[in-house]
């Protein structure tokens, strides 16, 4: 277990310490937080744009981050020689592979949790804007305290990371990603706690988060399949061909998924199930979650097998 934790923790730290990760975290969260600004485009339902922005951020930025991190963490280790130094010790190759993918999945989960909190906050802000607009007429520019919280915490995270780097030599990108992710639940909590004076018909940030959780979990599992797939490919292929195959697999999973090998993203994209105030019950989310989990296990086993037969020179 100690070996597994050491490997997984290092993979997570390396994934989060990449400059690309900080850019993706910031872009994803900024996209979600700024959605309420476009309050004239609600697609028939207050907060729907913000919600779809949140899911899209996880799907697009999450997929880029996760596949890049998996290819980088496993592929680069094998090419650079750190894997040789590790596997020369009493570390089974299957453990090495599974732990590395787990570390990347942990980093992806952190991103997903941050986006989920940001989406709840953003959707609430959109709903507040819509309510205030209907009460006070056109031209209302108030989106409640939430927008300030969300944007403020995001900017403060970067400022704190810069200060930590300046004064304590802490790694900037790693600190920025962690603070960005940890800042989102705080922003949500603060908006929830200080929500005095909000329109009476506003359902509240907490129930919004609970409603978003099941489809977010399902989508996270769908994205995680590609992390395991990218990791498995990285055990045998160099960066460019592995990236090309993962990109093709992502496109295929939208257009023509291969049963028992690739997820049908349409089954994991459940944002439409929340339309009109509906809730996705866990009893419906769980089968999609289970199907994704089986595909993750399949690719983990494949990757472990490929690595165990590989010569590491």
């Amino acid at each position, binding site marked *: 277990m*100690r*070996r597994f*934790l*050491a*490997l997984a923790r*290092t993979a997570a*730290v*390396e994934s989060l*310490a990449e400059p690309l990760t900080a850019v993706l975290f910031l872009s994803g969260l900024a996209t979600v937080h700024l959605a309420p600004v476009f309050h004239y485009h609600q697609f028939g339902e207050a907060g729907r744009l913000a919600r779809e922005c949140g899911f899209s951020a996880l799907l697009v930025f999450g997929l880029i981050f996760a596949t890049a991190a998996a290819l980088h963490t496993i592929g680069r280790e094998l090419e*650079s*020689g*750190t894997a*040789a*130094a*590790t*596997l*020369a*010790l*009493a*570390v*089974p190759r299957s453990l090495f592979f599974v732990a590395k993918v787990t570390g990347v999945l942990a980093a992806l989960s952190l991103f997903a949790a941050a986006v989920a909190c940001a989406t709840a906050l953003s959707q609430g802000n959109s709903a507040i804007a819509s309510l205030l607009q209907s009460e006070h007429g056109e031209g209302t520019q108030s989106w409640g305290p939430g927008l300030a919280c969300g944007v403020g915490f995001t900017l403060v995270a970067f400022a704190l990371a810069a200060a930590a780097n300046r004064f304590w*030599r802490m*790694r900037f990108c*790693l600190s920025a990603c962690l603070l960005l992710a940890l800042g989102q639940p705080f922003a949500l909590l603060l908006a929830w706690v200080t929500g005095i004076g909000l329109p009476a018909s506003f359902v509240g940030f907490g129930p919004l988060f609970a409603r978003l959780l099941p489809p977010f979990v399902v989508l996270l599992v769908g994205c995680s399949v590609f992390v395991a797939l990218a990791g498995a490919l990285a055990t045998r292929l160099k960066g460019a061909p592995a990236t090309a195959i993962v990109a093709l697999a992502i496109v295929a999973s939208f257009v023509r998924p291969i049963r028992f090998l690739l997820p049908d993203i349409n089954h994991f994209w459940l944002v439409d199930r929340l339309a009109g105030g509906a809730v996705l019950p866990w009893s419906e989310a769980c089968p999609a979650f289970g199907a994704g989990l089986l595909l993750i296990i399949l690719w983990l086993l494949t990757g472990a097998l490929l690595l165990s037969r590989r*010569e*590491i*020179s």
Partner: protein
Amino acid sequence: MNDNIIEITGLVKTFRDFWFRPLAAALKGIDLQVAKGDVFGLLGPNGSGKSTTIKIVLGLLKPTAGKVSLFGLPPRDRRARARLGYLPELSYLHPFLTARETVRYYAGLSGLDRRTAHVRTDQLLEQMGLAANSNRAVGGFSKGMARKVAFAAALVAKPELLVLDEPTSGLDPLATRDVKELIRSLAADGMTVLVTSHQLFDMQDVCSRVTILSQGQVVGGGTVADIVAKSADPRHALEDYFAASVQA
């Protein structure tokens, strides 16, 4: 009772291309034994098969033919690999980890408990003169400092066998002297060391036995004391012996 830590018999390694066609014959049937307590030098020109031999001993490459045993077990047996430490040719380290995190990472991989890992890490960082820089990311270290971190990582679990691939490559004279001192002190404590290097003066200083490889075959070897005793110029004994063996 067999006292050999490493036993290699008739080792052959042929690298193949994507279509499994033979690409290069790296080893053509070598035999060697490393006894307990030896500081064993595996010497040879570039492409002679030193690193390939080491990687087969470490279980990273599979032999095409022949037999290899490590502590009397197959090289990929975890029980055997749990007893060794490895310093690769280049200091392959995770650039984002600090020196302290790197050594603790390898302590974790060796299965040390948290408390022991902390104590050993602090000890080794102090011993290597890295305590003041222990919280800096190793990606920004000089080659010599990175080598010291890699050394600390290889030693953290107190291995019985230490495998060093070009330990002094690229180091300045002072850092090279430190590494040689370290190898000597480890040998004095009873550790078995398998070392490869092109630095023949350094090898003559630290090794008790050597084997010379050329084009995948053993072309010479023996105890350093014997080689020095038979040489007309004891200061350059190993260099002369190496040149004579390789050119023969």
